[in-house]
């Protein structure tokens, strides 16, 4: 790294990470072990235990993080021919495993947050800085820095590309690392002929489906235990298992793209693109909002019977109508009558008033 340019600080490390799309930053000495393991299903030897990013499984994350259909969904997956994979992070995702997440204190941990990059004095972050290509030494055998829209930056020891599944291979190709014929076609000078660059995308499709359960206490609803702050919903995705099933290698074509030959496209590659299956206990994902959570109507008296506690109807209506499920608010105005209180003017959707019974209760009077 050139210490004189003022944009990237000099520091003792010789490792840098470049993010070529919107910004890049250099990172303080990388931890040799990135993950903290605190789950029996995770292989500590594989992930390490001393890094700042913690990963944890559902059961180990909180003693009360339990979901009511754990056994049932496990049996369902087994019946589908999906076997238990004790550690989904061991190298193969095939089968079903307990979900392991990198959440901490109720939030996901992006690497930049976990490594406290923003607080790190020896790191400079450049935003809106496009990385054009990796720079190599004269022998084309060693990366020495990157060319960016803000100029060239040089690393004294290592250059690390960290640009995501799509952009990292793109940057390698733009830098001359990839299939020689593809690069020649695009007029990019060849640095290294590596035909597989950009051809091994691993992807996992997810299609959300929704069920409303007969026993509503088994999902998140408005019952007293169904608060979003409960451990079931606060510590991560509310689900037990995550399963991966390989999709059958059905030949797909893209005639709309002008393909003449029906072929298996690598985006549906059976080994690399499994379908991801999990059961979440809340509606989530695109389209979920049209599936209302339980509690489609909130009803209340204005004055509670018989303790006459005055309910804050304006506040209740405000909260109800701010919620995504937008429940109707029904107000029983019997105790105050329309003379003293107008529920519709205070935000209620429906008003009811009870017909009063004749004032007789002779039987009880005799008992007294």
């Amino acid at each position: 790294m050139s210490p004189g340019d003022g944009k990237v600080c000099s520091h003792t490390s010789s490792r840098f990470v470049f993010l070529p799309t919107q910004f890049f930053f250099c990172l303080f000495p990388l931890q040799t072990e990135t993950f903290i393991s605190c789950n029996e299903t995770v292989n500590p030897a594989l992930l390490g235990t001393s890094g700042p990013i913690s990963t944890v499984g559902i059961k180990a994350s909180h003693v009360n993080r339990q979901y009511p259909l754990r056994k049932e969904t496990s049996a369902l997956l087994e019946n589908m021919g999906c076997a238990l994979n004790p550690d989904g992070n061991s190298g193969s995702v095939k089968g079903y495993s307990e979900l392991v997440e990198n959440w901490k204190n109720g939030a996901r941990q992006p690497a930049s947050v976990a490594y406290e990059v923003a607080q790190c004095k020896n790191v400079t972050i450049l935003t809106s800085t496009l990385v054009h290509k990796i720079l190599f030494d004269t022998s084309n055998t060693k990366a020495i820095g990157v060319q960016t829209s803000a100029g060239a930056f040089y690393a004294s020891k290592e250059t690390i590309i960290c640009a995501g599944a799509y952009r990292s291979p793109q940057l390698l190709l733009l830098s001359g690392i990839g299939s020689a014929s593809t690069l020649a076609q695009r007029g990019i000078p060849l640095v290294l002929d590596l035909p597989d660059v950009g051809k091994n995308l691993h992807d996992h499709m997810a299609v959300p489906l929704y069920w409303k359960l007969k026993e509503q206490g088994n999902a998140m609803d408005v019952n007293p235990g169904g608060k979003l702050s409960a451990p079931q919903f606060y510590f991560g995705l509310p689900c037990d298992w995550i399963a991966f099933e390989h999709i059958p290698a059905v030949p797909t074509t893209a005639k709309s793209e002008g393909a003449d030959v029906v072929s298996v496209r690598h985006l549906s590659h059976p080994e690399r693109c499994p379908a991801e299956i999990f059961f979440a206990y809340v509606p989530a994902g695109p389209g979920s909002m049209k599936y209302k959570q339980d509690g489609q109507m909130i009803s209340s008296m204005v004055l509670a019977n018989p303790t006459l506690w005055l309910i804050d109807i304006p506040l209740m209506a405000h909260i109800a109508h701010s919620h995504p499920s937008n429940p109707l608010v029904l107000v029983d105005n019997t105790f105050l009558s329309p003379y003293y209180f107008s529920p519709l003017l205070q935000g209620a959707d429906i008003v009811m008033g009870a017909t009063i019974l004749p004032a007789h209760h002779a039987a009880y009077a005799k008992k007294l």
Partner: protein
Amino acid sequence: MKAHGTNALLIARALENSPHVKEVIYPGLASHPRHALAYASLSPHAKKWIDSIPIPKDPIDGRNGGGGDGIPYGGMVSFRIKGSAHKFLSATRLFTLAESLGGVESLAELPSEMTHGSVPEEERALLGIGDDLIRLSVGVEEGEDLVMDIEAALDAAAASE
């Protein structure tokens, strides 16, 4: 509806001043924790009326309501009695023992044994429905008569202890 409210306010004040009462619940009383909400959320026509009237003086202790001592707010009043609720309910002459409410005649009931008798005892305890809680539905009779009836019944309930 105006008479229900003004009478209920008189009753609530009388109960508040009685040594035989633990607690009065009437959001129209200035001492009620949600009195401000009650006033702020009044219907527009009720607010216009309440702002225009001198709040009637308490006929018993002569205090001037003047707005600072509460507002008419419907005819329902609940309170917790120190003495025997059964004796109180037997002693009233104008308040009829009945589960109903909202009519022109004044009614009284014991929720723990009547309207809410089917609620399990533990739930009643959680809801604050004790054996001492009496619910009144104040009618449109002469307010002074109603206050005297309540006070006489309170005395009777206290004397029976």
